[in-house]
């Protein structure tokens, strides 16, 4: 390493000029392209999980042989028994939260700091409720409560491929929701310090894109987990 640097020594010193200024519009464009590429990249993550779901939650030939009582065909798509109510309510909350995120973004662009912060808080609370719905009820972190609400005992991660894929998908999504929530808190904190003036709202825009993105992912996950396929008992 040192060998390579020797050359640098005698040269760099006389060129300690400032970095060429990158104009804000160029930087903004870079940020946007970068974030969208990140979203595309994550499509492959969630698609991988969805692929696992459709690959594993299927009727295999052995199952037909050993479960003659069921009228199932090889290759038929299955799903575990989950509470439709819980799924519907949590999904609805996440969707509504996106609406408030849009409000926050518009408010930021118009310089209405108060309205922006209020909308962010609503988004935050709805997102948090979604997260708690998944973590406490769907995951059965409080088994009695989950049982009382859903009427059946919660599925465990060790419950075969159903538990495994369910927890992997909801878990990966929950990690993204959590980072989104942290992002929102950072926005709220930094807006107190006068960040995100009109024309410089990239932070809010980024958070909004991310939040909507996580929301859209759930729009694919929700039917895959709750709606598609025959319930397997």
């Amino acid at each position: 390493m040192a060998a390579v640097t020797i050359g640098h020594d005698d040269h760099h010193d006389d060129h300690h000029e400032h970095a060429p200024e990158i104009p804000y519009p160029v930087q903004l464009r870079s940020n946007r392209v970068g974030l969208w590429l990140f979203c595309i990249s994550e499509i492959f993550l969630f698609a991988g999980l969805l692929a696992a779901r459709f690959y594993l939650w299927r009727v295999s030939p052995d199952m037909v042989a050993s479960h003659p009582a069921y009228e199932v065909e090889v290759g038929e798509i299955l799903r575990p028994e989950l509470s439709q109510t819980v799924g519907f309510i949590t999904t609805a909350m996440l969707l509504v939260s996106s609406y408030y995120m849009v409000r926050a973004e518009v408010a930021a662009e118009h310089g209405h700091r108060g309205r922006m912060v209020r909308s962010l808080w609503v988004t935050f609370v709805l997102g948090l409720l979604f997260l708690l719905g998944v973590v406490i009820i769907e995951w059965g972190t409080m088994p009695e409560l989950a049982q009382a609400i859903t009427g059946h005992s919660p599925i465990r991660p060790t419950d075969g491929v159903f538990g495994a894929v369910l927890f992997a998908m909801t878990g990966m999504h929950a990690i993204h929701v959590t980072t989104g929530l942290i992002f929102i808190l950072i926005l709220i904190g930094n807006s107190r310090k006068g960040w995100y003036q009109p024309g410089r709202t990239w932070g809010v825009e980024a958070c909004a894109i991310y939040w909507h993105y996580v929301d859209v992912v759930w729009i694919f996950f929700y039917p895959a987990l709750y709606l598609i396929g025959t319930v397997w008992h």
Partner: protein
Amino acid sequence: MVKAIVNFSHSKFARSFYAAFAGAALTWLLLSVAFLALNWIVDLADIAAPENAVALQGTVRLILAVLMGILGFIAGSGVLNGLWIGRFLYYAGRTALVRGLFGQGLVFAIVYFLMRDVRTIPEIESGVTQASGEAAIVLGALLSTFGFLWFSGVMTDWTLQMFGHHTELKHGGPPGEPEWLRYFNIDVNHKVIGIQYGVTGILVLLLGGALAILFRLELAFPGMQLFSTDDYNTLFSAHGMIMIAAVFLGVGALINYLAPVMIGAADMAFPRLNAFSYWIGVPAAVMLVGGMILGWDTGWVGYPPHSSSTQMLGVVLFLMGFYMNGFASIASAINLLVTVVTMRAKGMNYWRMPIFVWTAIATSIMQFSATQTVGVALSMVLLQRTMGMNFFDPSTVPPGDPVLYQHLFWFYSHPAVYVWVVPGFGLISELLPVFARKPLYGYKWVAMSSIGIALVGFIVWAHHMFTAGMPDTLRYIFMVSTMFVGIPTGVKFFSWLGTIWGGKMIYPTPMLFILGSISVFLLGGLSGPILATIPTDLHLHDSYWVVGHFHATIFGGFVFPFFGALYYWYPKITGRMYNEWLGKLHFWLMLPAFWVMSIGQMVVGLRGMRRRIADYDPALNLDFTHSLITIATLVIGWSVLIMIYNLWTSARSKELAPENPWGSRSPEWLAPSPLPEFNYLSPIEIIGEPYEYGKDEEEIYARPIPAIGD
């Protein structure tokens, strides 16, 4: 609060402390390796070691480490700078590397200590009462990555921003310290990062090469001479993964150093993210080496059910290290794509970019997307091992399926093998016109063929799984799709031939490596379709033929062009010229040795040698070929050492290299060598075509933007 922590970590005390850590840890490490080697030799030679030898070694190691720690603490203040060891420790305490490693070790130790009695869920379910420590290792490895990142300081700016501080991008070396220290610290300059990648890559290459030589010695003769079978398994697994890491580092070096200059930019679009991509590789590498120490026997592919059930715990560190490397791939690929989209110089439209940039784009397209699916596969194995979540065990209803892993794994890893070669193709296309003094034949076709390879690369993955029990229809589909790769690859070969055809060729070292790489890749490329044909693959799968195939593709596609690039851009990077005679010696040793090695591997494969096996039946009559391969490996190893000697000593020569030694048209040669902090002294513009070699000298490609009124 955050600011206070940051300030403390740069205080005098903290620096002394890190110097102490560096001294102690390095001593511990070196002595451990030395004792390991000693015990191994004693064991092989059947010398009766004294009974308490191991305990004694432990005491010696502890005492010396403590002493060196104390010495480091004193040296950290700078009072011992008169001694080389004092200077070493003084500067060590001032590097992000040491800070990060300390953070990683600290976090790992805390987590491990707290969690060591926690059992994994499969352990609980099967009634094991004594925890193996696997749960602690997994969580410790995960969190220790953050330990590294925060202590090293890669995340400092972002963390400060989260708490509402404005942070400015700091350029140049650490104030008041020698310039070279920036290479061991967090630095945002793409050239510094490129060199960091490159030097790390070469070191990792040497480590992986050393492992290969060890197990090649074992294979030179039938019967087991040097290692236990478990050790052999660990060695080849670690060799594979470490070499792959080295190739990624080398690709990172090329792209980071070259791409921004070539498009006329001052830096990457996201300099901090760039530093992050490099530095997260360090904790990942630590995990891989840790996995090697614990032992891991799954090979680099880590297929379940073996990886999800093996008792060799190094496998979890391997999975974790592989996973963390993924962040680096994704982040740096996004960074490159954005840089190309938004940071090109005036006049640098897409069809006028140096052709290497096109291959960087193709590479990044594969890296930023496909990497995610291998992450899914790896984390599934980790989840199955620690949480008992069943993805791969077919005993449940509905059944898990190990083939799922192979799909997710190869959906990434097939494009990944193209990541290793496409930048190399770019180098070939970049350098041939310079040394043949002729335009690159079919620029647009070559540019598009890189993208074509990337796209076709996404639909061929299951050719690795012909014997895995897939439906027949799928096998045919993937056989045919694999053959399609030949089209864009063929375009490249014809372009290279067309460029050479009738050229006025000269043969300095870089050109030799480029021509050598074409010959070697041809060998790899021709052995591929034989594997992609189902009936032949049924025989050749899991044989040494596959080993010969991929070594030829990777050496032809990456190693040879990379070495060529090192020689070619050496005067750009250092401002000095390498020694031509030594360079040629390196080439003429390495090329024939490689041919012997690779063809030898294919031959033993055809004659029944399986891969990933420590021993073979003497009746197969393979001894001679195997010995020959081992000798060839040693020659390759020596030739690489010659290169390192050459590059090292030439950097110290007084004589400066000519400004544009190869007569290249590429814009990076307009700037002084070594490149200044922000590349071009004044912005450049592109006014012509890139590869008009051997034509009218007036046809300029790039020039500094003339001042107004000029």
